């Protein structure tokens, strides 16, 4: 037990003599230089290993974060840009819908029979009443059916409304209740209205001459 005891600061003397006998104490002076380096190296290695692992992890997280940020930015920018495009497209759709509606309106007015008739009349076209027809028989002979005559422009149309003098009650004339109105002296028959004129002419009803028709005009 002659091993000199070198007190290490902070250690209570005589506490570990038995251990020292069992295993020589690791005194720094006794330790070889390589030994200390080895320990430091080992420590450094483990630390480096730990550090590399942590750095990798941090890097991955950072990359993830950055890429996430970039993706978010990119997506929101794209969404904003798309919303502009969408708005523009919506506006265009609305404008085109308006245009198609306006055109539809215009076309339907222009192709209405009334407008067509007016424009045809303006071009000097005349409605035909009774055209003469050429009928080709199976043997090739042609027969004329009807009297060919030049078409004449129709008289200016009479006013649609009845003349001002007629009672306005025409709008809803109460239907005479049939049973009540049976006048014993009632006369039916066509020529009743035209009795004086039609009597002689075998009931032939004459077309009203155009001249008298003018009374209703204007």
């Amino acid at each position, binding site marked *: 037990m002659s091993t000199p005891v070198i007190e290490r600061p902070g250690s209570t003397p005589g506490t570990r003599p038995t251990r020292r006998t069992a295993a020589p104490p690791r005194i720094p002076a006794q330790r070889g230089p390589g030994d200390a380096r080895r320990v430091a190296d080992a420590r450094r290695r483990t630390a480096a290993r730990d550090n590399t692992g942590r750095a990798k992890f941090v890097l991955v997280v950072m990359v993830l974060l950055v890429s996430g940020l970039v993706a978010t930015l990119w997506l929101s920018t794209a969404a904003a840009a798309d919303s502009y495009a969408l708005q523009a497209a919506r506006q265009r759709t609305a*404008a085109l*819908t*308006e245009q198609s*509606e*306006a055109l*539809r*309106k215009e076309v*339907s*007015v222009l*192709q*209405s*029979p*009334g407008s067509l*008739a007016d424009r045809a009349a303006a071009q000097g076209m005349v409605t035909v*009443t*009774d055209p003469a*027809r050429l009928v080709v028989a199976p043997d090739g002979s042609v*027969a004329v*059916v009807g009297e060919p005559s030049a078409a004449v422009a129709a008289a200016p*149309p*009479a*006013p*649609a*409304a*009845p003349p001002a003098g*007629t009672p*306005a009650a*025409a*709008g*809803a*004339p109460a239907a*005479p209740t*049939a*049973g009540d*109105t*049976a*006048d014993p*002296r*009632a*006369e*039916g*028959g*066509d*020529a*009743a*209205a*035209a*009795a004086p004129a*039609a*009597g002689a002419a*075998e*009931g*032939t*009803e*004459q*077309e*009203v001459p*155009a001249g008298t*028709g003018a009374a*209703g005009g204007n």
Partner: protein
Amino acid sequence: MVYAPPRPRPRGQGPRGGRRRSPADDPRFRLRLAWVALAALLLVSGAKLVVVQTVQAGSLTADAEKQRASRIVIPAERGSITDRDGTVLAFSTESKALVTNPRLINKIKGDAAADYKNRMADAVAATTGGDAAELRRALASDRGYVVMATAVDPGPARALREQFPEIAEEGREARQYPNGTLASNIIGAATWSADAQKLIGRIGLESSDDALLAGRDGFQIADTAEGSGTVIPGSVRSEQAAVSGSDVQLTIDSDLQFQVQRMLADFAGRSGARSGSAVVLDRASGEVLALADNTSFDPAQLLSADPNSLGNKGVTTPFEPGSVNKVVTMAAALEAGVAKPDDVLSVPGSIEVADRTIKDAWSHGVDRYTLTGVLAKSSNVGTLMTAQKVGEDRFSDMLAKLGIGQKTGIGLPGESAGRVPPRATWSGSTFGNLPIGQGLSMTVLQMAGMYQAIANDGVRIPPRIVTATTGPDGVRVPAEAAEPVRAMSEQTARTLRTMLTAVTQSARGQAGTGPAAAVPGYEVAGKTGTAQQVDPNTGAYSRSQYWITFAGMLPAQDPRFVVGIMLDAPRGGTSAAPLFHDIASYLAQRDAVPVQTAPAPVQTLQIK
């Protein structure tokens, strides 16, 4: 939280030592006090939380809802009305109403307000074609809401709004009637209702088929940004899509309708008639190809239209048909076999039925007419002689089979069934009236329907005006077909058609009453009619006012069209036959009906 630093205790003084032992100096006591205060605060908050979350939860939620949630109506587009070829007669477009607040303009513009408003009125009037002076007057008034224009296209409306920021737009569905007065009596009109905030059918088909045309508005319950219609994204809680209205396709042919309307208006004007109606039916299907009154209105200008022109008299207003009704007697006689077309009747100038004496329209002694002659010359006496042979029951049956006294079910509003005195109430003289078309009434449509039965080999198909409806799903649903009624045998109908061609015959000595109805190249069957009107002053039949009627078909032997015409009180001596000729001639040209080259055989009407 900021804590006050502990008060420095005097040095050398123990916690127990001290001059004063105030409880406030005891930290434990102060701690406890703070604890109690905090606990009380927490308790109060907790209690309030419970009250808010449970007791008041309902009303608070409702209040919040009210503040931000709004029910946004999604308008359904009104269906269109088309003719049989798909020509659009009525459709809807988007339009804007321009409104402004003159009071606000006064406030903003101050002295320049009057000038500014005048410029605004002029610009709006120039765009919409309105009356500038009236607009200026409206804007000059001290009001908070002025509607400047009701149906402006979106484009011009936007331009105006950009020019004058004080103008606001209100979206409105506008109803377009591109054909103006064409078929307006049938279609009617729909106008914007400020109460319902949608188009409402006011008259005609637009009114009677309103439910079908209007569709169903949808809605969306969502949060909106305060004071605007902008929906906050993702806040939609409940949504129901709008269901567009169905499209209605009519049997009307718009070209024919236009011509018939024009010819009728022209003819009624020339003849001085109070009113007139005409109808053209398709022989085979009973479809209404044209249905016109002499007056019509522009549905786009419903408010300024003459109220008398709004109806659809061809369907709503019955009249006494006169001699047109004689075919009922003839059909019943032929059907019962009590008479044949070439039977010769010795017809005196007058006949007594019960207590009445009925004369022919022209005075004559005992003449010998064939049955065809009785019809073609429209002899009252001859017809009544035949009616006596037929008997009241068979006559009444035939009248019912021909649809007189019953509604046709055409599907137009206000249809009249006409009036036939019930069989039980017939007096002796009634049967002296009905066979000659007095004492009963029918509409033009019923009259044409009667002749359609004759044209269609005895099978009457009640007229219809709606071909099909196309629902919002695009599926076309054909309208329910009318139930055909056999009114007479095929043979009877054919014989009757031949007899009716004699009406338009103009051979010397054998002329019928309506040769003016004849169309060169075609055989035409028809019947003229004149019925006395009741004089409202005397209550008796008038001697000056008549209903002039004509019903006929073209071509006579294989008819394609049936035409009915009625003129109300035209000048004396007017016949509706020339109008029938015009319509029939147009029909023959337009549909290229094959021409008949061989002249029709002359039928013997009178034996001299």
